């Protein structure tokens, strides 16, 4: 399949043109798959049932399974191809937050055989025995040697692998450089400019992890700190900046596009999309720190069809499949085999694949940060002030 993909006679330039046309909705996914050759890979896959699935998989996969995941996070063809190859129909449940996924699994009877949690929830799930330690022998397509250990290690708890990485990204900020001339390189700059040149034009997330985390970073403190004295400093800064903010809202694309807002905390995918359509919008990673995140695949302990869960996970770890997932959702991949399949236009996009050096100061959010009551109360005081 890898070979088919590489042999398709399409130039990287043309690939990107078609990719952007498709992203803008000018052409259909089917047309895109056809002209780029990705459709060929799909066709090849479905012609050989079991391709991409370990042939040693003699056990019965049943006829259906469910996956819980995020909006617009998959190429729909992925599941169609899996069904064609294995006969297992995949029901896709879409969620808006990790907290909802956790609540559903805790309540029992969620019925998922695979789901997509974010890094900072893995240890909580493992601690509550809601997810299984993975049997890597059932996932031969997973290749530890080509994975970036920074990402695989977040899927481990005490050396045991509970989850395998899907896509990763960063939390930086987007700046409309046509409106804001001040040079911005750090979170310290972000908050300073928000109170001056960008008065009434800056947005922060409606999410304590990133909003409090970035405020802490701008003060030279730890992104994940839950120390009361650190949080008190962050609170002082946030309350000071609040009257100057345009909004506290994680849905910042509409306001950035309408130029109501000139600057916002921003996730990788949104940064890439904004910059693609409005080149004057730059995406900046704080030199003083910030968040790096990764979404994972994990199998719930309560999975009704674990065999199919493993089969789909193995299918998704196939680089030929993962590359299409990457193209569908725009977030970077963790497996160098997948990156090798991407056209240089994508891999040279500094928003999607920043320099390693700019990633060094970034931190993963911690489970304790997310569930800390002190941070939750700080956020409520910030929002109600």
């Amino acid at each position: 399949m890898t070979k088919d993909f590489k042999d398709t006679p399409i130039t990287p330039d043309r690939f990107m043109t078609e990719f952007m046309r498709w992203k803008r909705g000018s052409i259909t996914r089917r047309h895109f798959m056809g002209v780029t050759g990705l459709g060929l890979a799909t066709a090849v896959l479905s012609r050989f049932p079991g391709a991409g699935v370990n042939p040693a998989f003699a056990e019965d996969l049943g006829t259906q399974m469910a996956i819980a995941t995020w909006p617009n996070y998959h190429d729909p063809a992925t599941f169609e191809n899996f069904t064609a190859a294995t006969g297992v129909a995949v029901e896709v449940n879409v969620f808006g937050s990790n907290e909802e996924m956790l609540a559903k699994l805790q309540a029992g009877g969620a019925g998922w055989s695979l789901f997509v949690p974010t890094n900072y929830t893995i240890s909580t799930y493992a601690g509550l025995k809601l997810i299984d330690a993975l049997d890597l022998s059932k996932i031969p397509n997973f290749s530890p040697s080509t994975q970036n250990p920074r990402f695989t290690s977040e899927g481990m708890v005490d050396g045991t692998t509970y989850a395998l990485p899907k896509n990763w990204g960063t939390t930086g900020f987007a700046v409309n450089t046509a409106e804001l001339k001040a040079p911005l390189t750090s979170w310290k700059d972000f908050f300073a400019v928000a109170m001056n040149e960008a008065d009434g034009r800056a947005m922060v997330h409606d999410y304590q992890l990133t909003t409090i985390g970035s405020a802490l970073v701008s003060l030279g403190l730890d992104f994940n700190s839950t120390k009361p004295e650190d949080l008190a400093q962050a609170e002082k800064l946030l309350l000071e900046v609040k009257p100057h903010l345009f909004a506290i809202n994680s849905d910042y694309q509409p306001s950035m596009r309408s130029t109501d807002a000139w600057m916002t905390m921003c996730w990788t995918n949104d940064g890439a999309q904004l910059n693609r359509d409005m080149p004057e919008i730059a995406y900046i990673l704080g030199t003083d720190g910030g968040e790096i995140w990764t979404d994972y695949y994990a199998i719930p302990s309560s999975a009704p069809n674990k065999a199919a869960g493993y089969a789909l996970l193995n299918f998704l770890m196939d680089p030929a499949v993962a590359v299409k997932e990457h193209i569908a959702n725009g977030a970077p991949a963790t497996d160098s085999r997948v990156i090798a399949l991407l056209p240089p236009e994508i891999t040279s996009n500094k928003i999607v694949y920043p320099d390693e050096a700019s990633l060094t100061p970034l931190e993963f959010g911690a489970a304790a940060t997310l569930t800390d009551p002190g941070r939750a109360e700080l956020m409520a005081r910030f929002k109600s002030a």
Partner: protein
Amino acid sequence: MALSAAARKRWVTAALLAPAGLWLFFFLALPFLAILVFSLGERAPAGGYQPALTLANYLNLPARGAAFLNTALLAPVGAALCLAIAYPAAWFLALRVDPRHRLLLVALMIVPFWTSMLVRTYAWMYLLGARGIPQLLEMIGIENIRLINTPGAVLLGIVYGYLPLMVMPIYVSLEKLDRRLLEASSDLGARPMSTFLTVTLPLSMPGVMTGVALVSILLLGEYLIPQMLGGGKVYFIGNALVDLFLQSRNWPFGSAIAVTLVLGVVGVLLITMRIAWKVSGTRQMDLV
């Protein structure tokens, strides 16, 4: 088996009431009981609920005092604004419009309800955003107008969103109004204004109070409009609940706030209905 006529009547009544009764029991009473139990519990270390028997969550209510205060201001102001706009509209529809056009006009009033509130509020985000009305104002020389993410935008969204809920009950109570009373009033020498104040208004009070109750109760739980048109900078109880259940997963504290909110709603209902009974001198309920 021979049942007496009275016994059979009782059985029929019970059977007819059973679906609604079971519905209320399973989807109102039981969930409320669960919320009540949650509100006396503790937050589990990873979030959610763990059993306990404590009033700590209720004692912690002042931590969301600002949210309660904002909501307590928003609900009456929003309802009053809706009323000020809805009453003349309903009066016009019920008493002045040519009956041939009435159905069409009433339908037009309800049509926006066919589209999701989320979609309509999103549309307002674009209308009030920099590329919307402010850009038009710029063309005629009025510059640097900020409409979106202001308290005014939140009020506008509220009035827009809830207006039909206020118009309809008032319209219904005015439409039933016995026109002969108006004629009698004017025959007896009352001016139009005093006819309105002494006849029309009191007779429409059940509708007014139903509308006020409907709108303020929904406003007490409002979350979407302050979030989308207020930029999330103004915090209402609805927003506090969303954060507690979906972000910090402090279900017991969220439940305590929800129970308090329900008590507030019951209070609003009691007050508005009592005013309506007193003014109209009847206990006839005009819920649409």
